[in-house]
């Protein structure tokens, strides 16, 4: 860790618009090492846009994004991943025709280095690296217990159940050996039991793997259960920040979710 930075991830006055529509405007927020931060907000509040700006899929129109004190604006997504930010997507994006294990092995791409000659001549170093990639990928699949273990690892990803696809996406992100893990609605489409299970996984990601987690979540049971801090967005702005209790009782947040009448 270098000196001179306090926040692991910091967004300074970030704005992003699509045509006339401001998805983000003047957003300031930060994530500190070892925190689990939840981002909530109604649909269209800019949560996923914020993820895409941080991970380099979009460039911000204004403002700066700092990771470990260094601006990462303009970096290619793969470079940002290499620096230690991994993510999942709101709608599951796997490599559907690769096997479950191969999906996770792709995650290790950025932590390995063998090139064309290694591939063709397959010297001992490449073999060892390939073995290490495989072990690391298996390890990240086994984070989810028996869900992604055994015969499933050799099956194509599209054959998985919906919940398992979500788990595989998280395992693939874990396999990139990240510092900061960004989960976009990890419990969407999961049943209540799976949701509870996943809530425990998110806590374990920090406690066992030592990750910092930034999570977009709609399910308030999960938000309540995991968050050290909650950030609420609406119309691309931060409308509240603090502990779950503070944010959940904030009138602006209730209004954003329920409309003025219900709040009144």
């Amino acid at each position: 860790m270098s000196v001179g930075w306090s926040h692991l991830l910091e967004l300074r006055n970030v704005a992003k618009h699509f045509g006339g529509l401001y998805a983000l405007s003047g957003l300031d927020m930060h994530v500190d090492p070892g925190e689990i931060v939840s981002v909530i907000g109604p649909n269209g509040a800019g949560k996923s846009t914020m993820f895409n700006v941080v991970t380099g899929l979009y460039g911000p129109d204004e403002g700066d994004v700092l990771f470990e004190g260094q601006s990462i604006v303009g970096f290619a997504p793969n470079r940002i991943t290499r620096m230690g930010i991994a993510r999942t997507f709101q709608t599951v994006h796997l490599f559907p025709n690769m096997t479950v294990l191969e999906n996770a092995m792709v995650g290790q791409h950025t932590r390995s280095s063998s090139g064309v000659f290694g591939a063709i001549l397959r010297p001992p170093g490449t073999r060892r690296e390939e073995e290490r990639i495989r072990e690391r990928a298996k390890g990240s699949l086994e984070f989810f217990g028996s869900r992604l273990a055994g015969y499933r690892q050799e099956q194509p990803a599209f054959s998985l159940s919906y919940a398992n696809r979500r788990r595989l996406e998280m395992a693939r992100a874990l396999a990139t050996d990240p510092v900061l893990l960004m989960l976009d609605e990890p419990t969407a489409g999961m049943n209540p039991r799976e949701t509870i299970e996943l809530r425990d996984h998110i806590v374990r990601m920090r406690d066992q793997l030592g990750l910092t987690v930034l999570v977009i979540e709609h399910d308030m049971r999960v938000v309540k259960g995991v968050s050290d801090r909650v950030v609420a967005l609406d119309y691309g702005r931060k409308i509240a920040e603090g502990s779950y209790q503070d944010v959940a009782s904030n009138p602006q947040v209730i209004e954003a979710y329920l409309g003025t009448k219900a709040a009144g």
Partner: protein
Amino acid sequence: MDPIPVRSAVRAGVVGSLVLVYVALVGLIERFADLKLVGEQVTLGRLLLFLPPFAVAYVVARPRVVAGERRVAGPRAGLVAGAVSGVVTSAVFGVAVVLADRFDVVRIRHVFIAATPGLIDFVTFERGVVVGIMILLVLGLASGALGGLAKTGDRRLTRPLAAGVSTVILLGLLQRIVPIAMQELGIEPDFLYSPRTRSLTWGGAIGLLVLAAGADVLWNRSGPETQRRIRATMIEQPAARVGILLIVLAVLVALPLLLGSVISQVLGSVMIFVLLGLGLNIVVGYAGLLDLGYVAFYAFGAYMMALLTGATLNTTTGSSAAAFSLDLNFFIAIWLVVVLAAGVGLLIGAPVLRLRGDYLAIVTLGLGEIVRVLTESRWLQPLVGGPQGMRGVTDAAIAGYSFRNPQHFYYLALAFVLLAVFVSWRLAASRIGRAWNAMREDEQVADAMGVGTTRYKLLAFAMGGAVGSLGGALFAVQIGSLTPASFQILVSITALAVVILGGLGSIPGVVAGAVVLIGLPGLLREFEEFRLLIYGAVLVAIMVLRPQGLLPNVRRMRELHEEEEAQDEWVHRFADEAAAAAAVPGGTLGVEEEDLT
């Protein structure tokens, strides 16, 4: 009782007759009127006359989905529907024949040059229009009924018969090759192939049919367990794998010795297209970048080999030295060509990095054309000879052993094919192959997972270019002189057809594709003028019947599998429901409403 789909049988029959009229008018039938397959009687022309009713009936009798329910036609329905469609095919064709005869066939020759009195004679069995059409109808009915039965009959009977008949037709078509090989092996071929007609003898044909059908019966009676064991042994046992590999190698080495110079020439061309296919397979099959200008690498490899090995420019008066030329040994020059071609791959890849799919295809198409135009241009004439081209490319001789000889060239090409196969295989099964795969499946996600897509796209173009240039360089050695005419866009299309026919991403598929698209037309010279027609028909058939290709790679097979579509549909429904649930604020937040107040 099964309902008989009379309407679709009639409709299919009309379509079949149109195909038949087309096949007759382009001259395919008359062209093959004298190509005897079995004895004097069975000619390819006659077979073509009855293939459409047979095929149409086969299609009509396939299982169909009615109101979500899959209905398999029984043998009776298959027989009747097949017969109806077959007789309609022949009848409509018969009407066309009568019309052509009435209006005097010579008058339509202005448009259809293949419509000759001889054609009319042939399709009416030389018995006059009336009797001829009667025979056509009866035989159309019979082949339609057979086609229907082939689809709906008892598989235990139809499968061995199909195996037998296709073996006989295949060996009948290979009448110029198999007898030569048999003679080289010291077997007198006369019992199988009649020396007079060159076709299969009736005895030989029946023997082959019985043999092939018997083999099929034996294989299927051995039961799924035995079959699985045999397959597993062949794939998993190291000894068996090495054994199979050695046998394949031995056959590959023996081929030109058995088949002689003419056919070795064809095999050499097959090898060149295997190299092109393998290279293009890296770009299209592995990395998913549709490159329609692949001929650029072929041309680059060929001309670079010419320049590096001291070829001269053709001029009207003789030849003159090229503006730049080295006099290297082939075995040094080839590696230089490969390295430079990889560089050209980077150059071609760089401007198209941001393009995807259709746009990439169109731009690469243009880049391929640019290379051809350059070879013809005045500007590069001092270097590559313009339209007149170059001559005197090295024959790669080692101690006087020239590789220009087709039988020798085959071995040179084989060596490079084996090298390219090895490289393709190792690349596919590596970290790089995995990165390409991920990029092909979802470029943006691959990028977000840490795969540098720019780098891997360029790498795919470089590797694809390097392998493709081998094909070009060997082509230059094979024919010794180059003109721009050899580097038309057709090369790109053929290479792509080779890859697609065999199965994208599959190495055995590339070999199969090259054998079918380059080898068969080369062996059956009668097909030469219909080559493009047959390419088109074969590709359409493959896309409809077997979109994953002849020998698909496992992953691609999955990709096109129905299961995936079903799964995706299910997931989308699920995701939509989830999104709908999430969109209702009370839906998820409602649980916690007490906390909020």
